[in-house]
């Protein structure tokens, strides 16, 4: 339980810091880079190294490659939909989530497993 709480606090703090950096940067497309900052990864990998050791973190990082490819597909699709059809950001980003899951698990299943 204490490990989950530690993950929650460290993850929340790291994500907030990267998001705040993105807030103060201009232009918007540059600030957007921070929407794909390795915030969750830094918090998780750091805690994994401490709790489970380096080999565990190595496997996580390998799988993260599939997650990053999925994020590329997800963010590109959401960007295109919002620019082309002017759908609301919340609706677009939530409804595009299955794409992230499809690409992430697809790449993992066919390439990394």
């Amino acid at each position, binding site marked *: 339980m204490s490990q989950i709480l530690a993950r929650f606090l460290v993850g929340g703090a790291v994500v907030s810091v990267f998001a705040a950096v993105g807030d103060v940067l201009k232009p918007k497309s540059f600030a*957007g880079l921070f929407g794909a900052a390795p915030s969750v990864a830094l918090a998780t990998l750091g805690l994994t190294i401490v709790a489970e050791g380096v080999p565990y973190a190595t496997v996580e990082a390998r799988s993260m490659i599939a997650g990053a490819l999925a994020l590329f597909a997800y963010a590109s699709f959401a960007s295109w939909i919002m620019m082309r059809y002017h759908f609301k950001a919340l609706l677009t980003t939530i409804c595009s989530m299955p794409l992230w899951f499809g690409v992430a698990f697809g790449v993992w299943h066919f390439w990394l497993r």
Partner: protein
Amino acid sequence: MRIKFDVSALRQTKWHDYAVRFIFGGLITAVAGIITKQCGPGIGGLFLAFPAIFPAGATLIEKHEKQKKEKHGLEGTTRGTEAASIDAAGAAMGSIGLLAFAFVVWRFVTHHNPWLVLAAATLVWLTVSVLIWDIRKAA
């Protein structure tokens, strides 16, 4: 195009927007840990690049842009959505940097100081992301 810092943007963000990011960021980190415990690091690792705070961030940008336009008596809905779209395009470029981050950690963390590898991988993420952004802008 020059990169600028605008600290006043922090004042535009309300405390509950910060709270939402903290909670979503914390939740996905905790959930990634639970998934790793239940399903192994192979599946858990996927969630290190999950767009947990992306919807909250995009909605916030859309809202700020809309408010800015409406302050001047203009209709801001379209501009708000376009701003969120531009931010998402930036995130797509950043995700290529994230891929480079994951690759560096995967290949080097076993044989080097893991904390130095995490720091170096973060630097690689920033460098690759900025380079791609720069190339895209110049094209």
